[in-house]
């Protein structure tokens, strides 16, 4: 089933970590397996923020010698960053297996990302000037507490509560997905793509990489491919309505925009609230009600609809 949510403050910042946590917690019944956040903080023009992990949560619980392995993996990541010319300015260990680095790097991002992910067990969740992508097993409150998201200020955010149906319960199959290797692009999705393998093979032939077997990752890679070819976000999303087969409602975020798209059968729910300075959307209205307990006007977007809002 899965639940998705998004919000964007237009022209101002707010505690989006707290807001999105409340929205996603109210959608727990739609997906209790894992929860993910893509939060957009103040953009750092000449620095990148990288969120990555060196093991899955389950590995840490049950793996033999996993702590030594994680230590080795992290040291290798550090060495490779240095080798590629990236200068780490701030290093934070968030959990046993998850890290947040702020670094300077001025070369091609794809080469750097590929070199780091070549380290066994290492997976980059996101790299961006504003984007920070956090996902882990458990409900929104648990993940938010674990990663200290309760005071995260920013302009916009998207999130996901996952009910695993077609792939494993692990972090790599959790949403949101980063549109690798393009900084600041992330995707959440509710639905099922029926031409997943066909599209995946086509995108792999074009040089894109997939970290999971989750069909939602395809949308992130699809958007990344479109951006790579110089297409704008709205054009890519409008094209996706006809090229992606199946039932879906998805939300995309970039450094300064938030967009949503709904399939031509309108088979997956989405409720929207829109005012001059704030837009919120979710699979169920009760998620929006966690921000606005008073009466507000909401509506369902229609079939084949694509909407984009700037921050």
């Amino acid at each position: 089933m899965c639940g998705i949510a998004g919000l964007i403050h237009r022209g101002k910042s707010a505690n989006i970590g707290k807001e999105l946590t409340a929205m996603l917690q109210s959608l727990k019944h739609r997906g209790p397996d894992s929860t993910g956040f893509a939060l957009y903080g103040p953009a750092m023009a000449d620095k990148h923020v990288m969120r990555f992990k060196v093991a899955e949560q389950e590995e840490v619980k049950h793996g033999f010698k996993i702590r030594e392995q994680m230590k080795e993996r992290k040291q290798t990541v550090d060495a490779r960053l240095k080798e590629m010319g990236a200068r780490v300015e701030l290093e934070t260990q968030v959990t046993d297996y998850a890290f947040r680095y702020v670094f300077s790097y001025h070369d091609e991002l794809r080469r750097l990302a590929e070199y780091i992910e070549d380290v066994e067990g290492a997976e980059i969740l996101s790299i961006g000037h504003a984007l920070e992508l956090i996902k882990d097993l458990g409900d929104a409150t648990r993940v938010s507490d674990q990663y200290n998201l309760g005071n995260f200020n920013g302009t916009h955010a998207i999130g996901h509560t996952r009910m695993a149906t077609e792939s494993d319960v692990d972090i790599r199959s959790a949403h949101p997905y980063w549109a690798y290797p393009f900084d600041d692009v992330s995707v959440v999705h509710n639905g099922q793509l029926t031409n997943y393998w066909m599209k995946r093979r086509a995108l792999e032939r074009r040089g894109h990489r997939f970290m999971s077997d989750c069909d939602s990752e395809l949308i992130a890679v699809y958007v990344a491919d479109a951006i790579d070819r110089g297409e704008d976000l709205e054009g890519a999303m409008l094209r996706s309505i006809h090229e992606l087969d199946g039932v879906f409602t998805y939300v995309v975020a970039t450094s300064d925009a938030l967009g949503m798209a709904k399939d031509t059968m309108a088979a997956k729910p989405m409720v929207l609230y829109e005012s001059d300075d704030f837009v919120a959307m979710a699979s169920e209205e009760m998620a929006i009600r966690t921000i606005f307990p008073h009466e507000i006007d909401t509506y369902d977007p229609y079939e084949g609809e694509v909407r984009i809002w700037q921050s």
Partner: protein
Amino acid sequence: MAKLKEHVSHEMGLHTEQLAGRTQQVFFDPEEGENFAYPTSFDVDFNKRTEFDAKDLETNAINLKIRELVKQGYGTIVVQNPGAKHSLGVGIFNRLQLYFEGSLGYFGVGLIDGPNVRISGRVGWSCAENMMAGTVIIEKNAGSCFGAAIRGGDLVCKGNVGARTGIDMKGGTIIVGGKTGILSGFMMQRGRMIICGDAGENLGDSMYDGTIFVGGRIDSLGVDAVEAEMTELDKSWLKRKLKTYEFNGADNVDHFKKIVAGKQLWNYDNLEPSEKKLVL
């Protein structure tokens, strides 16, 4: 086998079969008065009014509270702050004036038979699914599958409604003040639908019977849905319904189009199961 009492419903031609066994015992008590009331329904007084705040109550508690108040004879109940929770006000088989001050989530007021419900906010997907009688009036918008499989009563939304409005509708009336999404009236079998605004693609797809009136643009008709001539009877019925629910411009219905089943896909007969057995 007990002999059946001739009810009014028999005079109306609703029962031509002699029902036997358990079915008869459960549904046809010869001693029961012909009041069409459920054994679990209560006498209520519409002048006896109460209200409660649902802000901190779960769905189950809210529904139980409504039932308890009905049991106490309250005929008018106001539920404040429903907070878009799911499945509120479902399964009410009683005369009742029920007001929700706010919005409902998914599957609101489903399976009702009799109450008059008014919702000041919006409703989510599948509002009034399988409704059998009564009225439901929504002041704002509604989600998809609005009035799915309703069998009777009047279901009214003053705003816009999502996709698959009136899917599998088997009776009653659905009135939409604004527009509807794709596949509205899909597999409709009976009843009437009024869409004052635009209708999305594939309107009335595979409808068996029933009538859809559209005041705005129709993006496309579905398979076997065809336009029919508006009669004076249709127009007077439309005016009356729109006036009843206080829609603007109720006197002007000349621009409405009437959509019915082309019946080219019909491949079944009208025989009752017992008659079919005889034929076979």
